[in-house]
């Protein structure tokens, strides 16, 4: 059995090695695939903060992913068509600068998480799952019916947004950006998990009354965690928009929310690198099985089923025989 720390290093190393190999072997699609895995992992790292640490099973995280994505899509659309986003009371122009877009995406999705979280966190357990689903669906249908930005058709960003000093149109630099952001998010989520805040959040998951009696308000803890979580997922959404050069309501669908949960559970709930392992495996299976058979989804289902039934604590749990940290 391997120690979780070694496994983590291995996983991060593999995620880095794959695209480098792709670059060397002139298989640019490998890089795209790794980028996709990194972005999905980033979204799931966000979810894992709420879900793993705080026990907040959100089935509406695609909403934040989508808000981030639409932030990127809308800003880029206006910048590329040279139309201002609004002219009154002040004129706001679009932009194609990634850092600026990220900022907007993070702020927008954090605000969305603040609003949704403030209401949803009044409930708990299965009710929480369902109310987050409800908010996600509301945003989904809102986007479908949003004629200004393509409705169901979505928004195309014809050219990937720019990052100072890098050619983002090439796959490798774009991957590097995503990889670094993923690393930063992992660092953040690790620091949070060992902080007093993380301890209290985790305790609140297990015994709410206990946390109250030591003078800590679980609602506030959870709201803060939910907002951070939503913001990270929103950032992933902005990157996803750039990866595909396209955003659409599909980014807000409950399917995707479910998929994020799958990524987290597959890797191991509450494990630092659970989301990365989950996303990596999922993208690999999707890519590889797709070539095996028309009915590849049966095999994907079977693979997922085997992991749940026989690897407790997800893949990381299975590989490290359940011993934490």
């Amino acid at each position, binding site marked *: 059995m391997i120690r979780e720390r070694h496994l983590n290093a291995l996983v991060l190393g593999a995620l880095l090695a794959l695209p480098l190999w792709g670059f060397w072997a002139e298989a640019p699609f490998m890089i795209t695939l790794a980028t996709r895995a990194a972005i999905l992992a980033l979204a799931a790292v966000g979810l894992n903060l709420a879900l793993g640490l705080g026990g907040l099973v959100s089935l509406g995280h695609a909403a934040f992913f989508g808000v981030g994505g639409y932030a990127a899509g809308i800003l880029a659309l206006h910048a590329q068509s040279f139309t201002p986003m609004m002219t009154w009371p002040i004129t706001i122009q679009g932009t194609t600068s990634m850092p600026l877009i990220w900022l907007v995406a993070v702020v927008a999705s954090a605000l969305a998480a603040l609003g949704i979280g403030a209401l949803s966190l009044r409930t708990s357990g299965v009710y929480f799952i*369902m*109310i987050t689903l*409800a908010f996600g669906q509301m945003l989904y*249908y809102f986007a479908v019916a949003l004629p200004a930005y393509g409705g169901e058709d979505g928004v195309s960003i014809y050219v990937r947004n720019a990052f100072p000093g890098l050619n983002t149109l090439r796959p490798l630099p774009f991957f590097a950006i995503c990889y670094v952001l993923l690393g930063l998010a992992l660092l953040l989520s690790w620091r949070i998990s060992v902080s007093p805040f993380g301890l209290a959040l985790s305790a609140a998951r297990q015994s709410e009354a206990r946390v109250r009696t030591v003078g800590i308000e679980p609602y506030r803890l959870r709201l803060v965690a939910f907002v951070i979580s939503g913001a990270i997922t929103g950032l992933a959404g902005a990157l996803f928009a750039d990866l595909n050069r396209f955003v659409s309501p599909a980014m807000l669908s409950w399917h995707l929310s479910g998929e994020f949960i799958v990524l987290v559970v597959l890797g191991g709930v509450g494990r630092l690198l659970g989301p990365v392992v989950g996303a990596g495996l999922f993208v690999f299976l999707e890519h590889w099985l797709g070539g095996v058979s028309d009915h*590849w989804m049966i095999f*994907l289902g079977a693979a997922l089923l085997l992991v749940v039934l026989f690897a407790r604590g997800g893949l990381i749990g299975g590989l490290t025989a359940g011993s934490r940290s």
Partner: protein
Amino acid sequence: MSLSLLLEQILNGLQLGVMLFLMSAGLTLVFGVMGLINLAHGSLYMIGAFAAAAVAGATGSFLLGLGAALAAAAVAGVLVETLVIRRLYARDHLDQVLATFALILIFSEGTRWLFGSFPLYLDIPAPLKGPVTFPGGFAYPGYRLAIITIGLAVALALFWLIARTRVGVRIRAGQADREMVAALGVNIARLYTMVFALGAALAGLAGALVGALQSVQVGMGEPVLILAFVIIVIGGIGSIRGAFVASILVGLTDTLGRFLLPLAFGMVMEPSAANIVGTALASMAIYILMAAVLVVRPTGLFGAAT
């Protein structure tokens, strides 16, 4: 808008509500009472519809189709429970979500593999075809009336089973503390398999009945699944009465939202735009309803406070 149209729409809303209850009845049992998150419930619904379509198509008898639907869904339920779900009762909800999500993939692709990618044909049985005219000239499709009747019967039977019988007491006790019920001598494993099978059979029944009104195709279970969850949560987990009231509420909200919101916006906007905005809002209506209910009552309308 005439009064009689409004009345008919209210009736449509009630009718949709009962139909929704019928569709969520199985899930009420499995999720509401046994406390198991079964995303594959929609697949059982689909299995029912496909079995009914296949058998009714081959034999020409809707009743045989209905029987096949019940049997196929129940068998699938027993398989799913004994092979997968049984290992997950003690785990938390997340593992259940993942496992049953995997089951959706398997069932959907499996069905497509067996039946192909095209929708199947399942028609309303001849005796129930066409509208029934009531005294006073009001006409309503006979098949829908039959569905309402069956839905009400299922509601009563479920309520009786869960609230009034010892089996119901045991099921609920098992949800509260499975190990303890076993330690007191109840064969909870077998009981749960049977309840799960019953839930699956109800899903299959709904699939077959509603399949005659809708498109029998792969993926037909998903919207039903979401709706059923919405309903159970609005009603309060564990409460059959809650699920029933919530079904009616959702049916009315949906129907009247679709009908009235475009009209309402039409008063302040140009009709085409009002239509678009009104319909968009109507599609959010039940989710807004659910969020509102949960914000005010975090455990649903009839749910026990925790």
